[in-house]
C-alpha cells in the first residue's frame, strides 16, 4: 500500500490512475468490477483491480508503450478492456476505444488516423479483423488478445496473449515497485485521458480528445447531481467507444467508486440485468424501446384476464403514475390507492421483469426519446430522466433534476456548465467539460469552438419559461416546407417509432409541399402479429410487402397525423404518403451510424428513386439494393414497393 499512499500524498486526485489508487487505499475491499463467467458472477475488489491494472501497465511498458502513445481497445465490455484504459493512462498514454461491430475497413481509418501501435482486443474475431488490415496500417505493431480461445495456431509476430503480458508485468512491478508510482506522478490533469471517435452522421469520423480534467469534472457534476455513492451497481453493456458508456462505466465509476458489472455475452443482457438489479441505469432510447416492445409482445400473448388487468392499471399509471413519482400534492386519494394496488399487481412485477426493481436513477440520452415511451417508464415508477450532451462535451450538458421532469425537455444545465442559444437557434455550450481538440484537426476544432470559447453543438433548441432546454432537432435537419411551415423530421419520426410495429422511420419534406416517409417495420413485433393472424411470410422483404402489414402501418401513421393536428406548430407536417422499405436500415450498409442514428443525407441519396416516386404520385416503385452481410459478402434485395396514402386531419385550434 505504500505506493498508493505516496501516489495519494504527492498530488490531488486529478487523474484517473490517482483515483484508482485512492479507491484501492480507501475502499480496497469493495467490489469494483464484476463479470459473469462460466455462469457465475466473478468479483474483483478495488485493490485487486489496482494490482491488475499495474501489472498490465508494466507489461505494456516492457513491450515499449510510451508516454503519448495511443492504445486501441476493441471488444465487448470486458473487465480487462476497462482496466486497459487505466493501464494506458498510468503510462501517460491515451486509450482509444473502438466500436467492436465495425467491419475491418472502417477500422483502418481510426488505426491510421490515430497512428496506433498497440491494440488490445477481445478475441479471435477481432484479431482476425486486425490481421486482415494490418498491411494497410503500418504503425500497428502489437496486438494483444484477452480471450485465448482458438488462438493456439496463430503465429504472426506481434501477436500476444494479454495473460502473458500481465504475467510479465507482474514480475516487473515486483522488481521495480517505484516504476508505476513515478509514472503516475508524471501524469498531469491537463493530459489527454481518452480519445473517442465521433460516429459521424456526416463525413469522416474525428477523434475527440478529452483530458483527465474535463472528464473528471463531467463525472463529478453527474455524481453530485444525483448523489451517487460507492454503493451503486451499474450494468456495462453499451459499446465502450460511446461517450455515454465511457462517462457512466468508466469516469463516474472511477470518481464515485461504484461497481460496474459486465454481462456474460451480448445475448444474455436481459438476464444479467435481472440478476444484478442495477441501481443506476443508462441506455439510449432504442434500448428502452426494445425492452418495451418485448414486454408488449409478451403481454399480447398473455391470458385475457392478465391482459385486461394490465391495460386497466396502465391507464391508472398513465393518469397519475408520474405525478406520484414526482411527489406532486394534487393526486386524488382514490388514484393513490389504485396506484398502490397496481404497484403490487402490475408495476412491481413489470419492473422486476425489466430488471429495474432497484433502479434509483435511470438516464437516457443519445437521441431524442418519444414522450410516450418516456412517460411509460416514469408511470410505472422508474425514475427515468433525460440528459443531453455530445462526445465533445463528455456527454453531460443538461440533466433533468428530480421532481422537475418534463417529457419534452432535456433539463437544466449541469453545475458549472453555461448554455446559451445563438441567434440562429443553435445550442452553444461553454464550461470545463469541453473537448481539448479534434485529433490532428485544428481546422475542425476551430470550426466548432468560437473565439469566446463557446462550443457549437449543431442542435437546434430553445429554453422554455422554467429554464429547461428543449431540443427540436439537429440544426441542419430542421427545414421548411414550401409553404414555410417548420419541418422537424426527428420529431415526427419519434412519434412513429413509439409504435412497437415501427422500428425506424425517415421523413422527408424540406422544400417540398408535403411530408412523406420511409418506414422500417419491427421484425419481432410485426412477425408476432402476423403469426397470430395466421399470415405466412418468408422474411423481412416479404412481410414488409403484405397488404395487411401496410394497412397496420397506415393506422399508425394516421394516428400520428391525428396527434400532429393537435399542435399548431407542427400541424402542417402531417404525413401524406409513405412506403415500407424492403430492407432494414443497417450500419453495415452505411445507412445508420454505429450508434444507430439515421444518416439522413445518405439515405435520401441512396433511395432517391423512392423519394421521387413518393412525390410524383406513383402507386408503386421497383427498387434493387445491394446489401452487405456480416461476413463481408454482398447480395441484392429487390422489390416492387407499393406506396400508400395516409389520411390527414385539419389543424385544430388550441383553446386560448
Amino acid at each position, binding site marked *: 500500500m505504500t505506493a498508493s499512499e505516496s501516489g495519494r500524498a504527492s498530488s490531488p486526485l486529478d487523474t484517473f490512475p490517482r483515483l484508482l489508487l485512492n479507491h484501492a487505499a480507501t475502499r480496497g475491499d469493495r467490489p469494483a468490477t464484476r463479470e459473469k463467467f462460466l455462469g457465475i458472477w466473478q468479483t474483483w475488489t478495488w485493490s485487486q483491480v489496482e494490482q491488475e491494472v499495474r501489472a498490465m501497465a508494466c507489461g505494456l511498458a516492457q513491450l515499449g508503450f510510451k508516454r503519448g502513445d495511443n492504445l486501441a481497445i476493441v471488444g465487448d465490455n470486458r473487465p480487462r478492456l476497462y482496466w486497459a484504459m487505466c493501464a494506458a493512462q498510468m503510462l501517460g498514454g491515451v486509450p482509444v476505444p473502438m466500436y467492436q461491430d465495425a467491419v475491418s475497413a472502417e477500422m483502418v481509418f481510426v488505426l491510421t488516423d490515430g497512428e496506433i501501435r498497440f491494440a488490445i482486443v477481445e478475441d479471435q474475431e477481432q484479431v482476425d479483423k486486425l490481421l486482415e488490415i494490418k498491411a494497410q496500417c503500418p504503425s500497428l505493431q502489437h496486438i494483444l488478445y484477452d480471450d485465448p480461445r482458438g488462438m493456439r*495456431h496463430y503465429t504472426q509476430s506481434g501477436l500476444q496473449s494479454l495473460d502473458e503480458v500481465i504475467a510479465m508485468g507482474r514480475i516487473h512491478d515486483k522488481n521495480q515497485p517505484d516504476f508505476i508510482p513515478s509514472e503516475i506522478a508524471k501524469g498531469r490533469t491537463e493530459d489527454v485521458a481518452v480519445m473517442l471517435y465521433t460516429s459521424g452522421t456526416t463525413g469522416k469520423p474525428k477523434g475527440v480528445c478529452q483530458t483527465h480534467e474535463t472528464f473528471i469534472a463531467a463525472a463529478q457534476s453527474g455524481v453530485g447531481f444525483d448523489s451517487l455513492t460507492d454503493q451503486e451497481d451499474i450494468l456495462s453493456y453499451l459499446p465502450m467507444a460511446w461517450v455515454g458508456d465511457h462517462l457512466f462505466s468508466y469516469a463516474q465509476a472511477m470518481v464515485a467508486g461504484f461497481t460496474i458489472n459486465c454481462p456474460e455475452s451480448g445475448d444474455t443482457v436481459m*438476464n444479467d440485468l435481472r440478476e444484478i438489479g442495477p441501481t443506476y441505469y443508462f441506455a439510449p432510447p432504442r434500448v428502452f424501446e426494445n425492452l418495451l416492445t418485448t414486454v408488449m409482445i409478451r403481454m399480447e400473448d398473455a391470458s385475457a384476464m392478465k391482459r385486461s388487468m394490465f391495460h386497466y392499471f396502465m391507464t391508472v399509471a398513465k393518469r397519475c403514475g408520474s405525478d406520484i413519482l414526482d411527489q406532486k400534492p394534487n393526486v386524488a386519494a382514490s388514484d393513490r390507492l389504485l396506484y398502490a394496488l397496481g404497484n403490487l399487481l402490475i408495476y412491481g412485477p413489470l419492473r422486476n421483469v425489466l430488471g429495474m426493481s432497484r433502479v434509483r436513477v435511470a438516464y437516457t440520452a443519445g437521441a431524442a426519446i418519444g414522450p410516450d415511451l418516456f412517460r411509460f417508464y416514469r408511470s410505472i415508477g422508474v425514475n427515468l430522466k433525460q440528459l443531453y450532451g455530445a462526445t465533445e462535451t463528455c456527454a453531460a450538458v443538461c440533466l433533468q433534476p428530480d421532481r422537475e421532469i418534463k417529457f419534452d425537455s432535456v433539463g437544466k444545465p449541469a453545475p458549472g456548465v453555461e448554455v446559451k442559444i445563438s441567434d440562429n437557434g443553435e445550442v452553444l455550450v461553454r464550461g470545463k467539460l469541453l473537448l481539448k481538440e479534434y485529433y490532428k484537426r485544428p481546422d475542425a476544432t476551430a470550426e466548432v469552438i468560437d473565439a469566446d470559447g463557446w462550443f457549437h453543438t449543431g442542435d437546434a433548441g430553445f429554453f422554455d419559461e422554467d429554464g429547461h432546454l428543449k431540443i427540436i432537432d439537429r440544426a441542419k435537419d430542421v427545414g421548411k416546407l414550401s409553404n414555410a411551415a417548420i419541418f422537424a423530421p426527428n420529431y415526427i419520426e419519434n412519434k412513429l417509432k413509439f409504435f412497437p410495429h415501427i422500428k425506424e422511420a425517415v421523413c422527408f419534406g424540406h422544400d417540398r409541399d408535403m411530408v412523406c416517409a420511409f418506414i422500417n417495420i419491427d421484425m419481432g413485433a410485426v412477425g408476432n402479429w402476423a403469426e397470430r393472424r395466421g399470415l405466412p411470410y418468408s422474411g423481412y422483404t416479404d412481410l414488409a410487402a403484405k397488404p395487411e402489414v401496410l394497412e397496420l402501418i397506415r393506422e399508425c401513421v394516421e394516428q400520428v397525423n391525428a396527434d400532429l393536428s393537435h399542435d399548431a406548430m407542427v400541424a402542417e407536417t402531417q404525413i401524406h404518403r409513405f412506403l415500407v422499405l424492403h430492407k432494414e436500415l443497417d450500419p453495415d450498409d452505411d445507412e445508420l451510424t454505429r450508434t444507430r442514428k439515421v444518416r439522413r443525407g445518405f439515405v435520401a441519396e441512396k433511395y432517391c428513386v423512392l423519394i421521387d416516386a413518393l412525390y410524383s404520385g406513383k402507386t408503386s416503385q421497383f427498387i434493387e439494393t445491394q446489401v452487405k452481410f456480416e461476413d463481408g459478402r454482398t447480395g441484392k434485395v429487390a422489390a416492387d414497393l407499393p406506396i400508400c396514402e395516409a389520411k390527414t386531419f385539419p389543424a385544430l385550434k388550441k383553446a386560448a
Partner: protein
Amino acid sequence: MNGRKIGEVVLDLKNISLSFGGVKALQDISFNVLEHEVRAIIGPNGAGKSSMLNVINGVYRPQQGDIILRGEHHTNMDSYGAAKAGLARTFQNIALFKGMSVLDNIMTGRNLKMKANMLQQAFWFGPAQREELEHRAKVEEIIDFLEIQHIRKTPVGRLPYGLQKRVDLARALAMEPQILLLDEPMAGMNVEEKQDMCRFILDVNDQFGTTVVLIEHDMGVVMDISDRVVVLDYGKKIGDGTPDEVRANPDVISAYLGASH
C-alpha cells in the same frame, strides 16, 4: 497452421457385415479411424451410414467382423460399454429431453461420471452435492465453448432446430469422449448454422484432440472439414481416402450421379 497431430489407429473395423433378415445393410466393410482425425462416412440414402455408426457404438451387433478399439476386441459391445469406452454420439433426429432445460440436458451427459448413490442424490447431501458442483462447472465450460449461455435455462423444446443440434453436441461433449460420433450434424440447417457447426466441430477436434467420426450428406461440408472420407453405397464400401482422392474416384462419381449399378 494446424497443430494437432494425427496419431495411431484408434478404431479398426474389419470385414463388418450386418443384415436384417434378407436385407444386407453392410457387406464386408473395413476401414479404420486414426487418433485426432476427422473421419467422414458419406453415401447416398440407404447406403448404410447410420447402420455403420450404430455398429460402432454398440446399438447393432454385426453378424460378422471385428471391432478393435485401442487394440482390444469390442465386437460384443453394447451401448453402455461403448459409452464407458469413451464413445459419445449425437443423433440425426435429435434425441433430447424436450421439457428439460438446456443445462439439465447437458448435465445428463455427465451421468456416467457421477459416483454418488441414488439416496444421496435424492436428498442432495454430502458427496452428491460436491459432485454436482464439479459437474456443473464442467458443463458451464461446455456452454461457454459452444456459446449457448443465453439459452442456459430455456426448455429445449422451445429452441429452434439449429440450436437444438448444438445442445445435442453439448451433451455428447459433456461425456468428455475420446471418440465423438456425429450423425448428420448439419442436416436441416441453413448456411450460417452450418458454418457455425463446422467451426465448433473443428474447434472440438483441435482444442480437446477429440477424434470425430461423422456422417454427412452435404458434400461441400464433408470435403472442407474431414481428413479422410469413406464412401458407402448399397452397404458396400466403394471409396476410401482423402477428400481429393475420393472426389476423383470414378465409382463415387457414378454413385452420386446416379449411373447404373
